[in-house]
């Protein structure tokens, strides 16, 4: 874990980090990773990766409509809006 990795992750996450924060996060994330890395001591050869903790499958719902929530309610958490649209900073493409 170094500065390049932290900057890369910050960019993917669309957050700006100050130089102090970068140092702080390098330290924190390194600790987390080395903790998780203990798992590498386990021999997982020939073991299918687990995709779910619950041993169950095929849970479906029918294609039946349910009343949506009110628009006022739906938009109540939007930091900015115009009419019934959510307003966001300009995005290109």
């Amino acid at each position: 874990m170094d500065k390049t990795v932290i900057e890369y992750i910050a960019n993917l996450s669309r957050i700006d980090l100050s130089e102090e924060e970068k140092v702080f996060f390098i330290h924190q994330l390194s600790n987390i990773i080395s903790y998780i890395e203990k798992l590498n001591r386990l021999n997982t050869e020939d073991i299918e990766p687990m995709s779910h903790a619950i041993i169950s499958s095929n849970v479906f719902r029918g294609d039946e409509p349910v009343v949506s929530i009110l628009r006022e309610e739906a938009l109540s958490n939007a930091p900015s809006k115009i009419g019934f649209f959510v307003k966001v900073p300009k995005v290109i493409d």
Partner: protein
Amino acid sequence: MEYEVVVGLETHAELSTITKLFCGCSTKFGAEPNSQVCPVCLGMPGVLPVMNKKAFESAMKVALALNCTINKFTNFDRKSYYYPDLPKNYQISQNYYNLGVDGYMNIDVNGTIKKVRIHNVHLEEEAGKLIHPEEVGANYSLVDFNRAGVPLLEIVSQPDMRSTDEVESYMQTLRKILLYTEVSDCKMQEGSLRFEASISLREKGTEKLGNRVEIKNLNSMKSVIKGMEYEAKRQAELLDRGETIARETRLWDEVNERSERMRSKEEAQDYRYFPEPDLLPVLIDEKWMSEIKSTIPELPFDRRQRFMEVFKLSDYDASCLTEEKVLADFFEYCLSISDRPKAFCNWIINDLLREAKDRKLDIYNLPIKPKQLAALVETIERGIISSTIAKEVFSEMILTGKDPQKIIEEKKLVQINDEGFIESVIDKMIASNPNVVEDYKKGKKNALAFLIGQVMKETKGKANPKLVNELLVKKVGG
């Protein structure tokens, strides 16, 4: 240098379910912004997505129709990226165990059959819709989440296409399959069907694939073809100058007919896929698979081949009839009543289709039913009415929905086959047009057509034209 263009297509089709993939919100197109949303599709914390069975089965149906191997174990993954149209900051998609893999689709390229391999077919959720205001200098975009969570099918082809004709045929064939299997309305103008092309060039005769460029924002099949031609030309020019092709994503600009590099994608994509813990895996057994398989109708490609072989129709006729499932169904319904394939084909693709188009109706919603069309065709074939009169009967049928027999009776349109009567009319016409008869005898062949016309006019089109012709020639001398 001479190059070969190599194209693969990614196709997105919105499935026409009533509700979204993971919640019960309506998928209806054109509703007021943000009126078809709920905590699940808005990505609120603590909600649980539950899969729409109809959507899953529609996806399986297409995977089977495209000859894919169905993964007996399939599950869903989170594809993470940050974009304002994606409320959860990840899209639920499939990455590790796609629903269908290693399929193929046969396409007809100017009479030659080509097999295009399908890499995979998988199910995912749609993103919301971004609206970019047109006002100059606007520094914002608007988001409508009605579309977020609509089931979306992705079909990824192998880079097996080599020309615009092949790409065109692939798109048309795939569209028809999606329509025949009734999983999507395929309305490109509403975004229900979208294509993205991956294009690369290589020196003719070589094997190694060149660097590929992805083209997005292709809003119609025409744009796909134009975008492809533009890109092939652009790459050829770069290669001729000794430059290398950068692996990148470009956006098609429909107005200016050119593509531009997508600035926001300069960073390598890093989707950090991992299994979606909120959804359980799906296990597919043989029984379920064959149930779904049994709902797949005969597909357009096979149906067209059968129409050509069994009913001896031309490639053009068979293609027209199988263009839409309802047309082909109508045709076969008629055939179940009487065995006159060519006559039905002509009436359907010329007259019925024109009327349907004029009235903006589905062929089944026209007042003429297969039984009535079959009756009309029978009256012509049996010589009860002429084909000219038949057109008149048809116009009446389309207006009133009456049976042809009834119209013929009411309007007294039965063809006149009485030779004595026809001869008397011919005599009358010869007597009143001596100059024309003279012209004909001098060798002016089209004078005969005039006389036939006069006889037909006199009999209000009811005389059997073949008989009129025969008798007239006999009278004035051949």
